[in-house]
């Protein structure tokens, strides 16, 4: 029994390692996510770099010397705005320009609201950070002046601000990061389904389409042994892809300037190992499910179509979790796909997890995988499946 199983497994591995489509879909497909991730975060980080001093071109610097002094005190690099600043802002080479009108000084001295203009293009993400900093510095200046004026007139400044909004951000940096990085669990779960996809189709639908299923079933081997051997090979491909994806994510996370985003993520080797451990049981199930579907399909092509639909399945909870993270309940870990995605996102948030969720998610997957394999074995005894239906 064991030698027969080994024989089936070894043949399938040898066969599929020689299949360029199987191997390249694992290696090529697994790098897509991490590369996308690296590009996104590098671009984001370059927009938000905080250590860069705020550069603010000004029109009419001479009209507001005290404001200029205030800004310079806060590290703003002031410069004279070029004449064509409007078109430059629209073109994206300038983020924002401050305009001090000529009558600023007159209004200011008379105690009226002195008007300044901040010229910007709010539709551009890249400029948004500069604009926000300029705005907050300007309103800070106004606030300081207002307070001084009220005090000079013997009025308590509190009267002028009946409500004061204080922002308390409860999201720890880790939580914030996790919400951005929620795409990682989705990618890992999809890897489970991608890695063995081609092998699962080829080993079931392909076997019959080639006409090699009938000779294979003629050997004195139990259907179950054949099915398990094929399943093990599929699982190896699936698991390999999960591991490659996880390693790629860890490498990318090291290179990408996540700190510049104010993001601290626990995506070190230990966390990655935890994630792989959390997701691998799903590989067992994904392979079995794909093989079951491929057994029903009448041809290789038909199996591909069905299995692409099956790939949508992990996307649904994955997308929902990425858009609006939910509070996990214990029973949810039992549900394949959802359980793995929850586990990985909890791990990434750096939250302590007991053994129970891991055990529950593994049990859920293994039980369902066993049911799928039993169903495939039964199907292989069905004349209509073996010899085709019309």
């Amino acid at each position, binding site marked *: 029994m064991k*030698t*027969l199983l080994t*024989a089936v497994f070894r043949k399938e591995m040898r066969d599929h390692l020689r299949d360029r489509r199987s191997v390249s879909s694992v290696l090529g497909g697994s790098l897509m996510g991490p590369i996308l991730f690296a590009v996104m975060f590098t671009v984001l980080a370059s927009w938000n770099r905080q250590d860069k001093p705020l550069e603010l071109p000004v029109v009419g610097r001479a009209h507001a010397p005290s404001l200029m002094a205030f800004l310079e005190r806060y590290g703003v690099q002031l410069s004279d705005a070029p004449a064509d600043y409007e078109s430059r802002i629209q073109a994206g080479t300038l983020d924002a320009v401050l305009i001090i009108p000529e009558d600023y000084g007159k209004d200011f001295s008379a105690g009226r609201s002195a008007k300044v203009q901040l010229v910007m293009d709010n539709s551009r993400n890249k400029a948004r950070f500069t604009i926000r900093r300029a705005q907050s510095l300007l309103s800070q200046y106004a606030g300081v002046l207002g307070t001084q004026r009220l005090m000079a007139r013997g009025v308590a400044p509190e009267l002028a601000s009946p409500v004061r909004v204080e922002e308390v951000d409860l999201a720890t940096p880790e939580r914030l990061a996790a919400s951005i990085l929620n795409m990682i669990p989705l990618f890992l779960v999809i890897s489970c389904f991608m890695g063995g996809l081609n092998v699962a189709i080829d080993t079931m639908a392909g076997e019959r389409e*080639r006409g*090699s299923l*009938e*000779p294979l079933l003629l050997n004195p081997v*139990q259907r179950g042994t054949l099915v398990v051997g094929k399943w093990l090979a599929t699982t190896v491909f699936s698991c390999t892809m999960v591991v490659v994806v996880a390693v790629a994510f860890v490498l990318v996370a090291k290179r990408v300037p996540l700190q510049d985003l104010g993001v601290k993520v626990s995506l070190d080797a230990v966390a990655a190992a935890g994630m792989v451990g959390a997701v691998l049981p799903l590989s067992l199930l994904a392979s079995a499910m794909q093989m079951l579907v491929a057994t029903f399909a009448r041809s290789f092509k038909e199996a591909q179509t069905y299995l692409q639909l099956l790939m949508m399945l992990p996307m649904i909870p994955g997308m929902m979790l990425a858009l609006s993270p939910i509070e996990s309940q214990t029973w949810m870990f039992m549900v394949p796909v959802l359980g793995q995605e929850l586990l990985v996102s909890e791990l990434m948030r750096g939250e302590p997890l007991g053994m129970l969720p891991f055990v529950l998610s593994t049990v859920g997957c293994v039980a369902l995988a066993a049911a799928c394999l039993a169903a495939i074995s039964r199907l292989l005894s069905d004349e209509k499946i*073996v010899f085709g239906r019309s």
Partner: protein
Amino acid sequence: MIEVTNLHKRFGAVTAVEDVSFRAEDGVVTGLLGPNGAGKTTTLRMLYTLIRPDRGSAKVDGLEVADQPLEVRRSIGVLPDARGLYPRLTAREHIEYAGSLHGLSGATLDKRIGELVELLDMKEIEHRRTEGFSQGERMKVALARALVHGPRNVLLDEPTNGLDVMSTRAVRTLIRRLKEQGHCVVFSSHVMQEVAALCDRIVVVAKGRVVADGTPDELRTRTGKDSLEEAFVTVIGSDQGLMQ
């Protein structure tokens, strides 16, 4: 030895095998002859355990195929209707795989592969991947795979179908060799000349029933025709299956 008694099989509304009985002795080549759709392949599939008969019995060396499929598969070598190969494996790897699934390994398996490569004249293709093999080369691989465990009973479903003259001759030589070694050989064909050239005993099947069973001479005597060709036409009632 193979014994088939009153086999019956229907698929939905279609009755593929109505009532088939015959005996195939060891050291004898038995031909299942009949036009396309007569029920030859279904009969063989029941014999090689992949289809369960609705009624009747089929025994291989005294073992009932429906009850002991694994034991039966050990004692038969089959060239089935579908004889697909794995395009990424070499000819030798095909034989190795079949051998290991029959529990062979190591030196025993190597020796057996050597014999088959010799017997089927496969030296040149032994280490080539089967992608792009000719019909004849594919047939050799399929035959070697079927015979790797040295089965006493050999079932061949249309073994010369689609082969050129040289390959057909190679298959015929192999069948004669198996007979000399005392194997029980059953093969099906819809080509009368093929059966006439090889068989000691002919079982003519038409519309799911055995319509004639005997040696070529007996067939001629029974029908009162001098040529086997006319005898065949007489028993199946049409000239379907004759080489024009």
